[in-house]
Structures are given as structure tokens and as C-alpha cells.
């Protein structure tokens, strides 16, 4: 088994599952019905992406794992998602800014991943890229609307930047399995998409009249290695409870 390919695939799956789970927490709580539906739809897209990646990862393990066992029976230390995805939603500004940061990252990541030498990863990325395009457009509009909005909405967006900025560095910091993926030709060079990401963020922030945090800011990391904030444990406790308590339970 190619463990780098497995870890690379799991990281893609875990990111999608965890941010999808966070977004799903808004279901029934969105500020207005249309936006409640929008973020629930985005959550649904993520669960779909996660399923595709987990199904592929399960096949790679060759040990009888399934998409369900990978999602429900691994511990926090096995999860490779970036810390940004597991942070609590906060208010609507924080949720939409996180979505904007992450969708911009995914937009360029999947754009490149479509050229992966691994055909399954390329196919999943090709499919998901179209959906991410909508997520990016939707979240960009919210960043602009709130940033260039009222004193209250702008204040909340500024607060959200303070809360989230130091979690964006990890997106572009490759772990050893990502480096191996690049060497083997199926992974994406993160440094390249970092430049595209910065450019897109700068464009949208300018329109939103929001400042890009200046200076050399210390960045959080290690989610990709399985070292997480305390928040992931709470997510997994809720998500995995049923399968842990009643193994193999089905609807």
C-alpha cells in the first residue's frame, strides 16, 4: 500500500468532512431562510466530496475499511484536517470568512488536482471544482457585503479576521506525505496555490475595504499531523457517538 497516497487522500476527505459538519450546524439557524439553505447546500456538497475521497481511501487501505469506518471510527489523532476547518462557527461573519478562506484554497487546489497523475483524485477534483466555484462566489459576496457594510458588520468582519488569519498558513504548509505526493506527481505544489490564494484574498478584501493583516504573523499548524485543537474532539464525540455506541447501526 502507498501510505503517502492514502494519507494525502484522507487529508482531502477529512477537510471536507469537518468543514461540512461545521456548516451543517447552521441548518435551521441561518440568518434568513435563503442563507440557511445556501450554507446547508454547501455542507451537503462537502459531505459528497468527503464520501468520494473516503471511498477511494478505503479502497487504498485494502484492509476492509469503508467510507463509514474511516469517518466514524478514527480518533482525533488520525484526522488530518487543517485546524481552520474545525474551529467553532462563531458568528455569521466568522463562518463566511472561514468559508471564503477555505473555498479560495480549495478552488486553486482542485483546479491543480485535476491534472493529478492519480486518475481517481483528478476525477473527484474535476467534479468538485464546479461546486467549489459556487462556494467561492457566495462567500466572496458575504465578505464584501459585511466588510463594506454597516459599522456593526464591519466590526464583526474585522474580529473574524483576527480570529482566523493565523489559521490560514497551515493550508499551504505541506506535511511529509504532501511532499511525497508532489515528488510522485499526483500532489499539488502548495506554494503555487498560496500565491493565487493571496491574490484572490487581496482582491476581495480590497473590494470589502478590509485590511490584510501585515507583518510576520505566527501561524498555527499541525492539524495535518493529527495534532488538533480541543474543538475536534467535541465534533467527533457528537458525530461518532452512534457508531461507537451501537457498532454497525443502520438507518
Amino acid at each position, binding site marked *: 500500500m502507498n501510505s503517502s497516497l492514502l494519507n494525502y487522500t484522507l487529508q482531502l476527505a477529512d477537510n471536507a468532512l469537518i468543514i461540512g459538519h461545521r456548516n451543517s450546524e447552521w441548518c435551521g439557524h441561518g440568518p434568513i431562510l*435563503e*442563507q440557511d*439553505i*445556501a450554507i446547508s*447546500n*454547501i455542507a*451537503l*456538497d*462537502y*459531505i*459528497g*466530496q468527503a*464520501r*468520494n475521497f473516503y471511498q477511494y481511501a478505503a479502497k487504498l487501505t485494502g484492509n476492509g475499511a469503508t467510507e463509514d469506518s474511516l469517518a466514524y471510527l478514527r480518533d482525533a489523532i488520525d484526522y488530518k484536517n487543517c485546524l481552520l476547518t474545525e474551529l467553532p462557527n462563531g458568528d455569521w461573519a466568522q463562518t463566511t470568512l472561514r468559508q471564503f478562506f477555505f473555498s479560495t484554497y480549495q*478552488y486553486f487546489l482542485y483546479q491543480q488536482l485535476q491534472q493529478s497523475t492519480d*486518475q*481517481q483524485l*483528478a*476525477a*473527484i477534483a*474535476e*467534479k*468538485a*471544482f*464546479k*461546486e467549489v*466555484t*459556487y462556494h*467561492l*462566489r*457566495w462567500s*466572496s*459576496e458575504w465578505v*464584501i457585503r459585511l466588510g463594506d457594510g454597516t459599522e456593526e458588520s464591519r466590526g464583526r468582519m474585522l474580529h473574524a479576521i483576527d480570529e482566523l488569519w493565523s489559521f490560514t498558513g497551515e493550508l499551504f504548509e505541506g506535511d511529509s506525505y504532501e511532499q511525497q505526493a508532489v515528488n510522485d506527481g499526483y500532489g499539488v505544489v502548495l506554494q503555487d496555490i498560496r500565491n493565487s490564494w493571496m491574490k484572490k484574498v487581496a482582491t*476581495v478584501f480590497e*473590494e470589502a475595504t478590509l485590511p490584510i493583516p501585515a507583518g510576520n504573523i505566527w501561524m498555527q499548524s499541525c492539524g495535518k499531523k493529527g495534532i488538533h485543537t480541543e474543538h475536534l474532539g467535541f465534533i467527533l464525540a457528537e458525530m461518532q457517538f452512534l457508531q461507537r455506541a451501537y457498532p454497525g447501526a443502520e438507518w
Partner: protein
Amino acid sequence: MEIPDQHNNRQKTAAQIEKEVWAILENVADPEVPVLSVVDLGVVRNVQALATQSEENWKIVVSYTPTYTGCPAMDTMKMNMRLALIQAGYKNVDLTQVLSPAWTTDWMTEAGKDKLKAYGIAPPQYKQLVCTPDSFQQEEAIPCPRCNSYHTRLVSQFGSTACKALYQCNDCKEPFDYFKCH
């Protein structure tokens, strides 16, 4: 229910069987937009009839592609395709998911687009018009399926299902779904 006898199929060619299978699938509806069949939607990509030595005679391989990655209707469509084929006497059926090339609304048949409009859902426009991430770009001009006015506005990019956006007509005031380009 009577299950047709497949022995009649022994004399047929693979091409004839495939044609029959396409016709059967044309009656399998999308559970979320029931006026569309899985063929109208462009979800069925290929049908192959393979001759076998077994009593079944033919093995049917249907390749399909999901509309949206997270489309919850996909599992139902898959099950309904299998059931429809079983009802028609095809028991040896293989449903294979293909992700690439990714589904696009350009694959929706013209007949499908007409059915959508008659159902009150604006059919998808051509995708090169809109599928870019730039915010606040000019909105697509989507004609109202009720009065055909282009004087409409986007209410939300995400509608009642993953594949739709919500619009409203400024002239006749009708709120309507738009099957968005993809």
C-alpha cells in the same frame, strides 16, 4: 407483477438490447424533479449489453454520473434504475459510477429543458456564461418560465435542491427555481 421472460431476448442483438434499455431508463424519473428522466438529465452516460452463457443471457452495464457530488437523490436514482431493469426482466445489471468527465448541464437533452420549463423551472443556460467565481459580476438574464420576461432577479444562488438557484420575476412576480448551469 409479471416479470417478462428473457428467453425472447436470445434472438436479439446487443444493439437491440441496448436500445431497449435506453427506453426503459427514459422512464426512470429524477425524484427531485419528477418531470425529468435520468436520460433527460444526462446522468446515464453509457449502456452496454454483454452476451453471457448464463440463463440471464445478457449482462447490462449502465454507466452513470452524479449531477452534484453530494446529490442525495443519486442513491434513489440508482435504485430506481435497477428496479426498472429488473421489472423489464434484466436481472444481471451492473451500475457503474463514473466521475470524469464531470456532469454538466450541457448534457441535459433539449426535450429535458422543454419539460423543465413547462414544469415551472427555468432550464440551465449555457455554462460558459456564468461559471466563474468572480463576485458581483453581471447576473445572468434568466427568462421567467411563466411569462418569458427577462426582467428577473436572483434571490439566492442556492435553491430548494443543490442543482437550483432561486429567482423572482419582476413583471409577473412569480418566484421560480432556476436549474443552474454547472
